[in-house]
């Protein structure tokens, strides 16, 4: 057992690389989602956008743990709490999408 902390057994350089990669992939798609929400203004878009930003926050917690800002004791709880949040937001987005599809089509507003 390494007393070094939460990154036990993981090469810190590799972990840093993975986190930078995660930010580079996740931030642009969260940005795309935000623009799509501004255009479409419906609940599904809002929930998917929030899920993607929760994913960004999850990467933030991981980075905070590496840099010692987030204490080891809370990082597992925070990350898995965000997992639950992301899953719930996606379920909400799917439910809201069905509500929208139930409206009659072919009619003008």
């Amino acid at each position: 057992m390494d007393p070094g902390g939460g990154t036990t057994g993981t090469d810190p350089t590799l972990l840093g690389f993975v986190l930078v990669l995660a930010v580079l992939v996740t931030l642009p798609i969260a940005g795309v989602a935000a623009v799509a929400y501004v255009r479409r203004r419906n609940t599904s878009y809002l929930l998917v956008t929030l899920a993607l930003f929760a994913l960004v926050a999850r990467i933030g917690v991981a980075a905070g743990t590496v840099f010692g800002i987030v204490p080891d004791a809370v990082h597992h709880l925070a990350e898995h709490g965000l997992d639950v949040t992301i899953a719930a937001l996606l379920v909400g987005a799917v439910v809201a999408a069905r509500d929208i599809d139930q409206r009659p089509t072919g009619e003008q507003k």
Partner: protein
Amino acid sequence: MTDAPTRDRILDHVQANPGIHFNAIVRRLDIASGQAQYHLRRLAADDDIHPESRHGRTHYFTGEFDTWERHAVAVLRRETARDVASVIVSNEPTTPTAVADELGIARSTLEYHLEHLADADLVRKDHDDAGRVTLTAPHPGDTLRLLDLVTPTLPDRLVDRFERLVDSI
């Protein structure tokens, strides 16, 4: 002609990319947004370019575009709107169901873009007595000409594809 080299670069870029929006000018020419804002204001004051605000975005054009063309190009810079307009021009008269099937897009995606296309007088929606909708293209020749003139930017394409994905959940 204009006095500053940056202003000439902006004018050339707007000429080559009709309907380009502010963020794309800043990104592609790698200039500060304050600087871009200043030069665009001066170019507009001199009547060298015409700003067109549509759906929360300002698109820029040189003088050779009339009001209808400016509105139409602003709409036709969107990838899915282009697809919808092309299908309607090729198949008119057609129906929303046929267009959505041909493109493989959700009905909500189609309705959103039809609204913008109808607004720009690129597509006409007619309702018959039974409530069925017929789609026609009032200006097919001009629509094809304007479609050839512009291509959507990469970020715009990504947003459009994201919308297709979310709408099809």
